[in-house]
């Protein structure tokens, strides 16, 4: 009798575990993965300390609407990878800091602090067009070495990918996410030098002879980087 009871208990446990797995299986989770190439730009002669807080590096969008299909989109790792690649291409030296504070390192020129403000996605069934779409809104902040804000702006990103036969929704959404992340990287690279606050700050640094004397050649190269006039961000 005892053996039977143990067997029934084991069976019940197995069923419970199976049901739990089934429930987990129903929750769709997309972990964004993609390739972010290094940018083709002349690096600015600056040493930048990058601050990724845990909200940013572990960012995961959780859908509250019960009727929507994708329940969790984890993109923290991918956006850290993107910004790291982009920043390391844009600046001569990139270091990582835990927070924005008056730095003990006198060689640090500025802090870069990205925040994710908003995330939205659309599935083809919702829009009636054969496309997966993603929007991301970033709040980007740049501080000087003393922790004073230099520039603070909104950078939006958009990515879309068409539906295709034999392509899963998760794969399509991942592709749209990668397009959006590449878009924010491209927008950031093209916009950074043209932000009035950044231009003003660079001019101020220019006036300090030490800055010009240490990096004269590179600075000229950066100031001649081309821009695409038709791009509106």
């Amino acid at each position: 009798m005892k053996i039977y009871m143990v067997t029934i208990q084991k069976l019940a446990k197995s069923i419970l575990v199976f049901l739990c797995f089934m429930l987990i299986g129903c929750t769709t989770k997309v972990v964004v993965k993609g390739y972010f190439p290094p940018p083709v730009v002349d690096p600015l002669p600056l040493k930048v300390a990058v601050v990724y807080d845990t909200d940013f590096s572990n960012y995961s969008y959780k859908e509250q609407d019960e009727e929507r299909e994708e329940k969790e989109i984890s993109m923290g790792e991918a956006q850290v990878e993107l910004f790291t690649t982009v920043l390391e291409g844009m600046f001569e030296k990139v270091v990582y800091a835990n927070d924005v504070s008056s730095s003990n390192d006198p060689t640090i020129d500025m802090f870069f602090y990205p925040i994710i403000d908003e995330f939205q996605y659309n599935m083809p069934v919702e829009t009636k067009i054969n496309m997966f779409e993603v929007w991301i809104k970033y709040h980007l902040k740049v501080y000087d070495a003393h922790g004073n804000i230099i520039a603070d702006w909104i950078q939006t990103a958009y990515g879309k990918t068409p539906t295709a036969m034999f392509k899963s929704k998760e794969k399509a959404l991942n592709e749209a996410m990668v397009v959006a992340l590449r878009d924010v990287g491209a927008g950031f690279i093209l916009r950074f030098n043209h932000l009035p606050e950044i231009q003003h700050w660079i001019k101020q640094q220019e006036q300090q002879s030490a800055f010009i004397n240490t990096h004269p050649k590179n600075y000229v190269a950066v100031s001649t980087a081309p821009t695409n006039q038709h791009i509106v961000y």
Partner: protein
Amino acid sequence: MNHVLAIKQYSILLVLLSISACTTVTIDQVKVTESELLQGESVVVIGRRTGSDYETEPELISCVGKNLAKGKQGINVIPETEFVDRLYPWFEARTAPSHIKDLHRLLRYDKVKAIFSDYNVHYIIWIDGNTEKTRSSGSISCSISTVGVSCFGFGTWDNESQYEASIWDYKTKVQIGKVSSFAEGTSYVPAVVVPIPLIATVQTDACEAMALQLQTFFTSPSDIITGK
């Protein structure tokens, strides 16, 4: 006897599987100036991704690239992803040059110019358009019984492809012409016990026809790949 019957059944199945629905493709071409592709020069095929309610399919771009490469002349085609990655962020959906003068401006940047020279690019082919389902009707119902699965019904749908390729000459910085492709086809799926799909491969046919036209585009009567 059984052997003969099996062969017959397989033959019928093979015939049914090899039947596909028809597609009509119309190709138009405008050539402004002469084109010449020398030995060792490359062509890059890129999709325009600026449309708000459609996206030029990456499969179409790679299909055109593959078909251009496998022609008699064996044009050297740089894969879209490789090219766009190598030139990040200058050829992304929102940053890619939309006019030839934008390309001209972009090429003032030495690093970008060096990459173009590395690839020995002569022509850039921009493809814009998409394939979409324009109509669908009918229904098929399937049921499971002790004997097996059986389906009954009839389904049909129309697909339409519309693409336009603009060819830019990197060396002379002019648009040398355009090739447009319009394809339409109807697919059918009759189901009597087993559904038999008769699919119109509209996108593939549009791609192949456009690639064929692009090949002739790069071939002048006096022979293009001269090996100079």
